[in-house]
Each structure stands twice: as C-alpha cells, then as structure tokens.
C-alpha cells in the first residue's frame, strides 16, 4: 500500500476531521516546528527541491512560482495568499473532498505557504455551491484562531496571518487566476493582462500568490518529511501523490489518491473497476473539460505532466471523463462547447464570437443538418480560437482542445452524422 498523505484523515464513513482529530494525527506539527524557527527561504528551498507542481491544471512548479514574490520591505502593506477553491472544471471533484473532510490540512498548508512568501492576509476563494465545505472551513478557521495558529503574532512569533473565506457568485472564469483576483476585488471577473504577474502586482496591486487547494494541501507534508521523501512518492518523473478521478460509464466512478504517474489503465481498470458491462471505451478527457481527448492506444501512459503532454493532451486536474462507445462523441463535444461559450467572459473576440459559432455548427451536425463544409469551418476555427488566437487568458485555447482532438480521433463519426443526416447513437445520453 503506497502512502497517501493528502487523504490520510479521509475514509469512507469517517466523519470530517475537526481540530482534535487533526491534531491527534500530527496536525499543525509542521506549523509549530517551522513558524519562527525555520527561515522562510529555507522553507522555499524545500518546496523548490520537492518538485511540487500546481495541481489546478497548469502544472507550474510551485516553488518557482513563489520565488517570484519580491522580498518584503518594512511597512510596505499587505501581501496575499489565495487558495483557488473555485472548483468548476467539468468532470473535476477532488478539492471538494479535501475541503469537506480535512479542512485543517488546507489551513495548515496556507499558514506555511504565507509564512514562506511573507503574506499576512489570506483568502479561500470558493464557489457558492460548496455549502458543506464553506461551513466546515469557517468552523475550522475559528478553531485554528482559538489556538493562535491563525491571527496576530502566531504562537508568540512576529508572524501574523489572517484567513477569510470568500464565497463566490458563480462563473467558471473565476477559476482563472487573474479573473479570480478581479472577482475578489468585487469586480467583473475578466482576466487581466500579464505582465504584471500577480506575484508582483496581484490583489489590490500587492504581491499575491494564487494556488490550487490540492497544491496547498501538499505543503505541510513536504515541510514535515522533506523534499526527498516527497520525490520518492511519485512513480515517474513527477513528485508526490495526485488525486485522480474517473466519471462516466465506469463500474466504480470515484476519486483516489495515487502515486503521481500511475498509468491511465491502472486508474481506469483497477480503481474505477473498468467500463460498465455492455460498454467499451471510446475515448477520455484526462483532466477535465479543457484537455484533449486521448484514446485506447494511450491507456498505458503514466498520468504525469510530461507523458500526457507528449501524447498531445494535458493532465489538467487529473480527473478523467470517460467517453463510452454508446455515447455520441459529437454530442459530447457539442455539450462541452455549449459550456465554454456560455462561460466566456466576452472580452476577447475569438472566444466571445468563435465559441458560439462552433457550438451552433456542432448542434447542426448532431441534429442531422450538417454539411461537409462544416468540417473545414471547425478545423479553421480550432486554429483561430486555439493556437493563434492570442486571447487574454487560456479559456479559448483550453475550450478548443477537446474539439480539435475530437475532430482527429472521431472524424468518421462526424462524417457519418453529415452523410446520414442523423445521429447514429441511440443508447447513450440522448
């Protein structure tokens, strides 16, 4: 049995972890051993050496991201740490688990992270629909404040950190780092131009780090056990464990903490129990809606950042969406494009105009009114909305990934719809 630091306090049927239970299992030991005792640069070195990469989808090295925060100057004003808990990537259900069942782990990760970057204010930016997680996080923050793990002069040191839960009001685009910052400032969630990067000029123009929930939950364990231990948890090029998931027509859909680099086949067959009887695998999105399709030939790839990228996709959030052979790939891509068109913030033309156009064409093909010329438009738009769009943020390029890869892997399905003027699939979703 491999180590599962992130979910060690989480098990089916086990109640959510309160402060007593968290403490009893070594909780806040890393805070007690680190705050005021280890130099922040020393902590940064451990995180850099650990090779932890962002778990929100982009996979950027966390230590590197933190190292761009300028050194604090006396009396310069607030510096911020934000946990991105706006989990809205379709097919993704991992951060909810961490927040609902072990909220103190996130809080401890945020205390250690803010100490490292000298932040004195923190926000957990969470979507409104996560009512249970919001309540448990607020309860846990109160418990931590009572123990002086949070607040002024933590544990008698010079370090202060105040943490606040900000409950959002909807819109997928809020998960984009700079859109999230605008939303936290009470504005429309349009992404910002970069540079300046948030590390230098983020929330209210102050140095700010935004990290995904799962990323932050790794920090206490790395600080406690060290970079070498963390590196040893991964089974390939990457370090640590990863919350992987599978949804769709599999026998046991779910979310599991496994060594990063576990193969797609092992996740799908051993943990998700394989396809439901009567269904076969047709394709999969490896890490949420904005990743390229993979197909059966990719099953033995390790789920790590480089391997999945070399196969033309991205590991993304690590939660796979499974397409079976009785569900229409054109209908699935049309559903995805409807989502992305609706969630565009409307700022950049390729995204605002291109995505609804693509969606309309896909709806036509699915309904049997498509023409062969539509395929050329879809191919061209994949370029205009994707690689060469120069949009402000990654929404449009991400949106187009399942379309451009779908056109490649499911070309015959598109043509069959157009030539037969109907959708050949009847046993799936529609």
């Amino acid at each position, binding site marked *: 049995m491999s180590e599962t630091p992130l979910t060690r306090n989480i098990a089916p049927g086990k109640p959510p972890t309160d402060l007593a239970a968290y403490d009893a299992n070594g909780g806040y030991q890393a805070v007690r051993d680190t705050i005021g005792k280890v130099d922040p640069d020393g902590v940064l070195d451990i995180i850099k050496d650990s090779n932890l990469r962002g778990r929100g989808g982009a996979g950027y090295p966390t230590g590197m991201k933190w190292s761009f925060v300028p050194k604090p100057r006396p009396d310069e004003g607030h510096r911020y740490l934000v946990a991105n808990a706006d989990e809205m*990537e379709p*097919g993704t*259900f991992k951060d909810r688990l961490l927040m609902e069942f072990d909220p103190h782990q996130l809080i401890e990760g945020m205390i250690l992270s803010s100490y490292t970057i000298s932040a004195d204010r923190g926000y957990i930016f969470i979507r409104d629909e996560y009512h249970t997680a919001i309540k448990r996080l607020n309860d846990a923050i109160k418990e931590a404040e009572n123990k002086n793990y949070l607040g002024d002069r933590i544990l008698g040191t010079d370090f202060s950190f*105040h943490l606040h839960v900000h409950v959002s009001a909807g819109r997928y685009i809020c998960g984009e780092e700079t859109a999230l910052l605008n939303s936290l400032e009470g504005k429309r969630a349009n992404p910002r131009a970069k540079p300046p990067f948030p590390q230098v000029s983020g929330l209210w123009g102050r140095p700010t780090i935004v990290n995904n929930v799962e990323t932050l939950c790794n920090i206490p364990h790395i600080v406690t056990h060290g970079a070498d231990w963390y590196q040893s948890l991964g089974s390939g090029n990457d370090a640590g464990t990863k919350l992987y998931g599978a949804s769709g027509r599999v026998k046991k859909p779910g979310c599991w903490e496994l060594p990063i680099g576990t193969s797609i086949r092992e996740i799908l067959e051993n943990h998700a129990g394989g396809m439901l009887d009567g269904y076969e695998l047709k394709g999969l999105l490896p890490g949420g809606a904005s990743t390229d399709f993979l197909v059966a030939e990719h099953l033995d790839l390790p789920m790590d950042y480089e391997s999945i990228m070399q196969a033309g996709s991205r590991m993304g959030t690590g939660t796979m969406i499974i397409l079976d052979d009785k569900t229409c790939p054109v209908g699935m891509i049309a559903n995805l494009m409807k989502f992305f068109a609706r969630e565009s913030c409307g700022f950049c033309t390729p995204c605002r105009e291109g995505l609804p156009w693509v969606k309309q064409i896909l709806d036509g093909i699915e309904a049997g009114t498509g023409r062969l010329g539509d395929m050329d438009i879809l191919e061209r738009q994949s370029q205009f909305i994707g690689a060469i769009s120069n949009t402000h943020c990654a929404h449009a390029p991400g949106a187009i990934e399942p379309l451009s890869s779908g056109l490649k892997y499911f070309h015959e399905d598109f043509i069959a719809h157009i030539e037969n003027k109907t959708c050949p699939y009847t046993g799936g979703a529609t």
Partner: protein
Amino acid sequence: MNSVRNNLASTLTDQEVSEIEAEISHLPDRRSAAIDALKIVQKHRGWISDGSLSAIARLLGMSDEELDGIATFYTLIYRKPVGEKVILCCDSVSCWIMGGDKITNKIKSHLNVELGETTEDSKYTLLPVTCLGDCDHAPAMMVGDELHHDLTESNIEEILK
C-alpha cells in the same frame, strides 16, 4: 424612468448594512465589497431589485450602472424574482454522459417550467449550472442549499414533491 423602476425596499435594513459593513472592514476599500453586498441583500430579499441595487450602490459609493455591470456578470446574483428554492441542474459533460438531459426534461415536465422559469406557485426556479463537482454520482443537482445526486427519472418526483 422612476415609473418603471421597482422602488420597493430601496433602503437597506440595519441588519443588511451591518453585515455589509462587516465585510468592508477587512477590505481596503468599500467597492471591493460589491459582490458580498449583493449576496447579503439577496440572502434577505431573495433577489436584487433595481431599488435594492441603487441602495447598495449608494452605500458602496458606486454608480448604479457600475454595480449592475457586476451584478449581471455573476450567475448566482438574481436580478429577477426567483422561487422559494432555486434548482441548479448540472448540464456539464459528466452529467450529460450519465443522462442529465433526461433528468432536466423530467424536471421541466414535472414542474411545468422551462429553464430560467419559476413555477406558478413560486416554489421553484429552474436554472442550469456548471459542473457541481459531484461527477462520480452524476447526474447531480442542487435544490436550494441541498445537493442531490445519482438522479433518475423516478427519484426526481420524490425530491421535488
């Protein structure tokens, strides 16, 4: 112009003001509380009328138009009246694969509403929502603050009775 405006309750209650001021207290400026303030007033009144919007804008030192630009950006700020409970029905990809369209259609016919509409008895408003992060139990929906999952056409009536 005033005649078409809903000026009902165009002043905020002491309770609403004190909740909004509590949010402002940990922010560097008043307007940063815009979304919090809209949510606080909506919690008390169910939705944000033009009158409520104006009152919040005055409290935060913003124009009505600027605040409306924010209010209309966010899907969970309601600028029209909604029912006692809002049904947020997931229409994202994992739910779609697991038959989410059938569930939505069942809700529509059971309540006799289309997406975006409120039932005649003002009990429910039906809205689509982005992935609820419960994909291993798809299809899923929220009814008010409660999450319901593993939905089938037959358990919908029980949930919405």
